[in-house]
């Protein structure tokens, strides 16, 4: 397999607590920080969503009587937190930092200090977002920003005069710079620091997925930053009027800018999950990935085409039908590389010797949920159908199937796959299994009924005819919440009992470089670079 790497365990010095965790430049420690951060933010973002779901459980206004605008604030915060502070930090900052350098045989990231900056910008950003929750935002001085995670003007300019939205702008700019720095770091690391013999076409798919994601970040986030700045100057009294029709501006311009960032953003959230699932499927089937090159270039294709489909989020703004027709066609094209991914996973399993390990269960569930979310995407791609479905719960169900379930299942898949490697301890299979089944049943119960609800989005109250499905959907938060409880029980149990994990606890299917190291890996790995000896695809 791999020969010639060396580690001097005796000299594996770790810095003291404060220096280690606050000045950290070590990619594994920074990865751990990102993961802890994502878990904390996830609890908050989840709490907000449960509160909204509780409100929607029956018609009438139950929990938001004092200030119904608060519902919109919750939805906005929930969306922003889940995207920028849970999914992205966990997949890219967490697993990307932990495993990209190891998988390509590098000792660390290319710019360790910038890596530290990337991480610490994030709690700063999160603090701004949290402050926004409590300071005046609405026209009547109500707290928080309720304009949706898409932040469309004029609701985000003249419609939200208070400082709440300014805090969100600053927070998102900080989070955006954090991601841009991270992206630069990953691109440099992956292009320049691969071990001898690790050519691009032998690089593990997770590294490929993070590389494509990093390019998407690098190209998309500056557009978000620019549009946020434009909002900021538009908000200043007597300032600019980019999006203000009374000054010759146009609110739709913002929507184009936002979705030029926003659509690549959804692939930013899902591509790393693709990478993780590929490894888990291959490991559990004890078979190399089927169609490795097709898999890698399918991700590249998704990334490229992802930049030219943005206006499928804007079919109702009054675009020319020819323009809509173009976006329909371009969007349908994305289904093709996506299909390649799904079929290649199935082909990887075909002929394999499949063990239904906990990560494999999450991976299989990921495929199921992603297929469902994918085909409802094909429905929405058709502009003439989107006329009916735009801004309804069908869309909410669609993007939660791909995000809240797709991306989150990818996160848990990676978490259970690498938990032993990262912590050095094995988890309790029963607790992990309970987490999986409760969560899987719960999220389906929440989101499946939403396809049939015929209800508009971002509504705090709805006509009684929609009550039954809403009740069913709200019931789903019980198993989902219990599932999360088992996740934390699993964590606590694992750190109390401390069953040591071997170097390669998955056995023959796990062929990437992290399985050649101890669990947890030494503080500095690959002081002598590993050399890829034989021709092998992962």
């Amino acid at each position, binding site marked *: 397999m791999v020969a010639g790497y060396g580690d001097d365990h005796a000299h594996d010095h770790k810095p003291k607590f404060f220096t280690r965790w606050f000045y950290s430049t070590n990619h594994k420690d920074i990865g751990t920080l990102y993961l802890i951060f994502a878990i904390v933010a996830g609890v908050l973002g989840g709490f907000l969503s449960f509160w909204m779901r509780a409100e929607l459980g029956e018609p009438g206004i139950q929990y938001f009587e004092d200030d119904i605008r608060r519902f919109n604030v919750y939805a906005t915060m929930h969306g922003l937190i889940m995207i920028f502070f849970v999914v992205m930090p966990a997949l890219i900052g967490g697993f990307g930092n932990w495993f990209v350098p190891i998988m390509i045989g590098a000792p660390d990231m290319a710019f360790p200090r910038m890596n530290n900056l990337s991480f610490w910008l994030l709690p700063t950003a999160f603090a701004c977002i949290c402050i926004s929750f409590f300071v005046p935002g609405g026209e009547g001085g109500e707290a928080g920003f309720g304009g949706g995670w898409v932040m469309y003007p004029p609701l985000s300019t003249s419609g939200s005069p208070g400082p709440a939205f300014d805090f969100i702008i600053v927070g998102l700019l900080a989070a955006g710079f954090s991601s841009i720095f991270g992206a630069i770091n990953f691109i440099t690391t992956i292009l320049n620091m691969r071990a001898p013999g690790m050519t691009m076409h032998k690089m593990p798919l997770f590294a490929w997925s993070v590389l494509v994601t990093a390019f998407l970040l690098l190209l998309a986030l500056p557009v978000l930053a620019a549009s946020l700045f434009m909002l900021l100057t538009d908000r200043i009294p007597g300032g600019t009027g980019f999006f203000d029709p009374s000054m010759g501006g146009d609110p739709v311009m913002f929507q184009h800018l936002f979705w030029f960032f926003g659509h690549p953003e959804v692939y930013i959230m899902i591509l790393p999950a693709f990478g993780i699932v590929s490894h888990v499927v291959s490991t559990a089937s004890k078979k190399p990935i089927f169609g490795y090159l097709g898999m890698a270039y399918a991700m590249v294709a998704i990334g490229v085409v992802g930049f030219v489909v943005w206006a499928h989020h804007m079919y109702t703004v009054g675009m020319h*039908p020819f323009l809509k027709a173009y976006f329909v066609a371009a969007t349908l094209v994305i289904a*093709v590389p996506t*299909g390649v991914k799904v079929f290649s996973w199935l*082909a990887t399993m075909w002929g394999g*010797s*499949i063990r239904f390990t906990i990560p494999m269960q999450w991976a*299989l569930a990921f495929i199921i949920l992603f297929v469902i979310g994918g085909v409802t995407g*094909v429905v929405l791609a058709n502009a003439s159908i989107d006329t009916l479905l*735009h*801004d309804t719960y069908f869309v909410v169900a669609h993007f939660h199937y791909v995000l809240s379930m797709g991306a989150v299942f990818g996160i848990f898949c990676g978490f259970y796959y690498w938990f032993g490697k990262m912590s050095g301890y094995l988890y309790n299979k029963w607790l992990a299994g309970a987490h999986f089944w409760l969560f899987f049943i719960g999220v389906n119960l929440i989101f499946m009924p939403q396809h049939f609800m015929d209800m508009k989005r971002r509504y705090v109250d709805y006509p009684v005819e929609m009550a039954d499905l809403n009740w069913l959907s709200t019931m789903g938060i019980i198993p989902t919440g219990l599932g999360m409880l088992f996740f934390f029980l699993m964590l606590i149990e694992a750190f109390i009992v401390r069953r040591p994990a071997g170097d390669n606890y998955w056995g023959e299917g796990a062929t990437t470089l992290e399985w050649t190291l101890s669990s947890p890996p030494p503080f500095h790995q690959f002081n002598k670079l590993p050399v890829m000896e034989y021709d092998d695809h992962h």
Partner: protein
Amino acid sequence: MRLKKALLLGIPALLLASASAFGAEPSFGWDVGVTDNAAEGEKFLYYVYVLIAVIVAFVFVLMAYIMIRFREKANPTPSKTTHHVGLEIVWTILPVLLLMTLVYPSFSTLFKQDIIKEADMTIKATGYTWHWQYDYVGMEDQIDEIISKPLSREEAGEDKYLLATNAPLVVPSGTKVKVLVTSDRNLHSFSVDPFWVKVDAIPGRINETWFEVYEGKEGTYYGQCAELCGINHYYMPIEVRVVTKDQFNSFVASGGDYASLPADKNAVQTAALNK
């Protein structure tokens, strides 16, 4: 071997089941197809539903088969196959072909919805924070603008709360109605599902859409705002009262008196129902 047979029988059975489940009894909770665009949109939507049901069924059955056939116990030694060019070409081309079948109906329904025919009358719908206003363009000297505000729970009753308004938009059936949509301040969206109509109300822009309700389908139809517009986004419904041409003419002749309209069982009948 037995599994393979089961699979051969199982797939078509599942496909048929799912196709009939989706195709058989279309139910949207409203009268199916009261406009051409709605009827064609629904037909196309069912086609897409059947297509995706077939795809989902195929993938899930295949997955289930693989999970049973290639589980560790049943297949202790994994194969080493990692390529099959033919297969990879098939699963690239096949989805392309399936998607191509969507292109024609997608575009034709789209162009029908968006390219507005010669209109018989024009309404201007303006979104305010938080209610709608309707102007009969070119008829201003005969009929005032309609300021359509939502009814409270007590006025509307449980069933029609968040749908009913004090003053619905009144339009004739069998008439091509063009709607110009704009907004005074925030974004809104003029959205009436039974007509298959949704277009954003944007300050500084005038968007257009159109509908023509079939004759014989007169009645009250409801829509709701479909673009986040602030606190009362959930509470600015759109109520459209479709009447015959004669009834519409007498409505106009009366200067927009709702009392001139016949009673409608699907609408709220209250004293509040007037301006």
